């Protein structure tokens, strides 16, 4: 009991000291005071470092696969080989070869397919470029965002844009449910139900709130009023993919 009381007294004394110490500190940056610095090693007790935020993002294979599932039709769908090659090339050049920014180091298969840059030797590519520069955990950066956005916008504005959009619509439309049945001449802007399907194509297993659907619908309708149904569908996919949160694991 006595030790408990002593401990309480000691605690209160230290509390006072700390209050004084806090009050005595001047010239404090509000930013730094609000965001304590991360430490690189154990604290004075030898315990764990201060917690830090590390966002875990999908690697280039995941992102390429997700975009392919949405936008890349097949010959079986009825798409032309040049269109498929065009879209595949866009995904490869913006996502698959960007091991430095999109993550996942290069193995021997990659060396001859996606990581061989500028005629470098496999040894150079694997050891120096990939294993040195590729992040162990992909992190959100403006470069990563740029590559993703450029892949999406380019596919929806290239000469193969119709093929990409036709594929994406076939996965989410209520009436045009196959690549072959998508008809741009009779296409209407996405409905609320179709917008929900677009959302869930990008975020599987997540139910969008009424608020996000309503706001998305307002944006899509405004685009449709000015540019027609086809562009409104493009903007629906651009909107859902622009958050980039679908890359967070």
């Amino acid at each position, binding site marked *: 009991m006595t030790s408990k009381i002593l401990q*309480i007294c000691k*605690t209160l004394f*230290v509390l006072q*000291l700390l*209050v004084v*110490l*806090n009050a005595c*500190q001047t010239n*404090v*940056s509000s930013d*730094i*005071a609000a965001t*304590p*610095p991360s430490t*690189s*090693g154990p604290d004075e*007790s030898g*315990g764990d470092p201060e917690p830090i935020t*590390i*966002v*875990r993002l999908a690697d280039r294979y995941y992102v390429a696969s997700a975009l392919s599932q949405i936008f890349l039709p097949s010959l079986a769908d009825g798409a032309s080989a040049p269109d498929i090659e065009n879209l595949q090339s866009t995904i490869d050049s913006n996502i698959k070869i960007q091991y*430095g920014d999109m993550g996942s180091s290069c193995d021997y298969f990659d060396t001859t397919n996606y990581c061989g840059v500028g005629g470098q030797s496999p040894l150079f590519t694997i050891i*120096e470029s990939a294993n*040195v*520069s590729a992040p162990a955990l992909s*992190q*959100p*950066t*403006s*470069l*990563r*965002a*740029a*590559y993703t956005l*450029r892949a999406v*916008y*380019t596919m929806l*504005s290239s000469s193969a*844009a119709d093929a990409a959009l036709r594929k994406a619509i076939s996965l989410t439309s209520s009436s045009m449910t196959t690549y072959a049945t998508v008809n741009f001449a009779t296409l209407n802007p996405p409905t609320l139900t179709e917008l929900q399907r677009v959302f869930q194509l990008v*975020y599987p297993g997540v*139910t969008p*709130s009424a*608020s*996000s659907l309503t*706001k998305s619908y*307002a*944006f899509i309708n*405004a*685009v449709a009023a*000015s*540019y027609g149904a086809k562009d409104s569908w493009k903007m629906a996919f*651009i*909107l*859902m993919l*622009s*958050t*980039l*949160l*679908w890359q*967070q694991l």
Partner: protein
Amino acid sequence: MKKIPHPILESRKVLEKTLHRRKFLKSFAGWGGAGMMGYSAAASALHMMVHGAFSKIYANSISSEPRNLFELYLQGGFPAQFLYLPLRPNAGDLYVHNTNNSNNWVSGAPVYTTAPVTAAGVTLHLPFIWAQTIPRAASRGGGFVPMSNLLTNTMMARGFWNPFDSHEIGSIQISRPSVTAPSIAGMLIDQIDGSRSPIPAVAGEHDLAGATFYSRTKARKVARYRRSDNFLNPIATIMDPFRANAGMLGLLDKKDQFSALFNDALSAVAQDARRLDPGSESILSSLSGAEALFRRNFGNLTDVYNSLYAKYMGLMNACSVQAYLSSAISPIASSPYRSGETLGVIATTDLRTIVQPNSHIGYMASAFALGEFLITNNLSKAVTVYAEGTNGLQFTAVRDGVTTIHQGIPNDQHGYGVAATIPSNNFYARCVAACTYEMSLALKDVNLFDSTVMKVGSDFPRSPSNDGSGSDHAWSANGFMLTSGAIKKPSVIGNIARSPYAAPSNPALRSYIGTWGEGSTHNHEGSNGTYLNLGHYASSICTALNIPSPTPNFLSIIQDSPTEGLVPLLGPGQTRNT
């Protein structure tokens, strides 16, 4: 000399005398009935307060926004005594000469020449080229300006011991001293939001410089430039992800017409889509950073790069036509110092002609062009670039009866001989100074000089051979040069030994007698016998950058004063007997 209290050390002592935070919180949690596995509400509140106390202690020494880092790595072990490793900076310093310490040629003999140079009221005795001039960019009127203009905002630190004698490890550990912690550039970008540095960190595509980078939070090295002098455009390479084609810009323009509705919808979608894990905000900020750069027009990047490249190459070429030796090196044939093991006997009569109008430092023009573009446009806060040896030289040497024309000298100058390296290294040092000074002016133009630190460093400097035949690795004598608007007065910090290998007990080392910069003891961290190492090196640079150190147990030797800017914590560097 009175010991200057170290702010972080003193603050740490205060807290250590009170109670350890973690133990305190755990005991408080137990008292509150929350058990040992978690903190009670009261303990949580206290945690915040205690954390605040630590943060404010930290903030006392790191009181503002992290500064930008421009790091120039001189590959190969640059002979720093020609520029930023002054061997006797104070009048009356102890000094023992060694032939390969020489930076000048007087009366037919190699000598180490210093000159008193005064800047901002401080007089230092520096390698004599500091009393000469450096060229000014044509766009600023051309001509030459005193090199002491650069000195005003420059701090030199010396006497750091590398843990190993290795180019590879040395080059890595000056940027990342601890394998268990981020690199200095990594620590820097860990501290900042991505929107303030869209391209978080850039490194030159040098195998070693690239390997130094490691960050553990928001980002890591994400863009690089290729080894190039003029055949590749590193700026275009790095900006390539933000290059938008016409079709893409058309879609972006359409979207932007409804930006209010789009942003409203995006926020709502993001709210639904976000994970419970923290950090989603940084993903969204990366989106805004990317979109902004798609639209930002930097002009034709080929023209931009060529212009910057030509500016820095022009400065280096101009360095070649200035007198940087106090007398001619002629005739060389009669000098006992004319040969080097690698080169053979130099046949060129007047060694001043080694440096030609097109002489330059390998990759340095690209390095500065890239750094100036990225930092002055607020595109990156951490740019690490590298330069190699001197190119475009011309001299002949005869070895084993074979006459060879030489066009370059590397920084790793084993067997290169004092005769050839004196003019080459002085030229190199002036090039570094001229380019650094020009970049400082470019930073001033956009009001970023005070918030940027330019660092020059190398694997290690050189230990000289007394017969003048070359130099070896001075891995116990590392140092750096910092230039920043936050530095208001010049200084040389760090104690060195007078004559490290003078003891006859080790005859194998006696050829390296002389004062060449080996680190000596310091009155630091509560001891009068502290040797500085790369932990102190990193902590000091981190202090200059306003960021936590990856090696916090090795305390900085400089501090960031609210009134005086970046100033030494130690007294002026001394030369000690051992």
